């Protein structure tokens, strides 16, 4: 293993650790919604510092690798893709933190019926699962798995679109629970963005492994 190989391996393990932390952040946030556990939500908020620490470290490591090793070809694409993935992951971390803040600020536990009608928890599971799958695809350089992300993201989009009328309906019927409806709707909006970040990461993986640029391509070009 060359010196550069060792640096790249370390970079990969670093971003994998960050990734796992963010998956945990989403899982904890979901649990905090279900159990209305403000302490758990506060833990998520506190952990955001660790996520930011990872982001800074990975940025710096990438900069050093560019400056010291002048990577080319697949090595160059790898470092470029890690740099961008780092950014996408950091934003995903922000999303978990943002939802955790709703929980801390909310006055009442979330209405179970509203949660189920809006499919908020289904969406949570799916978003976390997608993030896990992109990680697997990154770890194994599995672009087939990465390509499946594009379709799975559409499910999140659908839930997001449907949520508008469900929440509007709920607020009309329960005007006292306006705040609650808004928090749920905002949560859904944020979860929808987790899907977008995962899509971006999937594109980076395909770029790195196959040297194909999918950004701004039409949906059908993304399939195999």
């Amino acid at each position, binding site marked *: 293993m060359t010196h550069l190989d060792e640096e790249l391996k370390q970079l990969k393990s670093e971003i994998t650790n960050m990734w796992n932390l963010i998956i945990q952040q989403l899982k904890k946030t979901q649990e905090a919604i279900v159990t209305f556990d403000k302490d758990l939500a506060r833990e998520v908020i506190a952990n955001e510092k660790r996520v930011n620490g990872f982001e800074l470290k990975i940025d710096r490591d990438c900069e050093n690798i560019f*400056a010291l090793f002048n990577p080319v070809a697949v090595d160059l694409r790898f470092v470029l893709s890690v740099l961008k993935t780092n950014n996408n992951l950091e934003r995903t971390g922000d999303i978990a933190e943002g939802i955790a803040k709703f929980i801390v600020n909310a006055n009442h536990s979330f209405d179970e019926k509203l949660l189920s009608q809006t499919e908020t928890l289904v969406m949570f599971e799916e978003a976390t699962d997608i993030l896990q799958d992109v990680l697997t695809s990154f770890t194994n350089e599995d672009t087939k798995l990465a390509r499946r992300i594009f379709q799975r993201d559409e499910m999140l989009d659908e839930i997001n679109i449907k949520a508008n009328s469900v929440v509007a309906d709920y607020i009309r019927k329960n005007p006292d629970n306006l705040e609650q409806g808004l928090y749920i709707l905002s949560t859904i909006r944020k979860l929808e963005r987790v899907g977008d970040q995962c899509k971006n990461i999937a594109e980076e993986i395909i770029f790195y492994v196959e040297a194909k640029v999918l950004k701004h391509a039409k949906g059908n070009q993304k399939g195999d």
Partner: protein
Amino acid sequence: MKIRTHQVNLYYSDFHALKGITMEISANTVTALIGPSGCGKSTFLRVFNRMNDLIDGVKITGDIFIDGQEIYDRKTNIDDLRKNVGMVFQKPNPFPKSIFENVAYGLRVNGINDKKFIEERVERSLHQSALWDEVKDKMKKSAFELSGGQQQRLCIARALAIEPSIILMDEPASALDPISTAKIEELIYELKKNYTIIIVTHNMQQAGRVSDKTGFFYLGELIEYDDTKIIFTNPKNPRTQNYITGRFG
């Protein structure tokens, strides 16, 4: 600190070639010396094994400590110093002898005759210089039958055989093709686990790839000396930045 210099000045007769160089080098690190031709890199390197002493009219002031010992002190034994501080040059310079004898040479001139000991040491040095697999079946062949890159690794093995703790390398890869260069660079990275290495290079990318610390020399002065990461991402001195970005002159 493995090596420490304080206010080192060197004159070739009345030419002031090194100007107040102060530098500290930790054990088991690679330090790269970079800078334009004629800035004093090789001169500074030769300070550590007192090779400049061989040149007429050279005068040195300041302090140079290796393992806490002032190497220009009267008490310093130059033979011991040169055993402790090995050197590898730009052009591979094997002797017109067999591969085996090239590596054994330093041991023999140091009075070692034990055949088994010499064989073991030669084999170990060739392993360390990543050459063993390529030469193990032709140890009696002339060193000149090896490629340039192999000859350079042979010279590294020759330096390692007498068990120095410091290795000086003066542009050790500049006469080699890219693959041989990559091998030497990987070798340097391996060797730093056991040795302290100072390498002069005019190849900036090479300094980035192999070194922990980098010193930028200009007109006999050490302009900037810092972690290689810092020199290559955020040098403090504009002259360093101009040099490493190729905007020099």
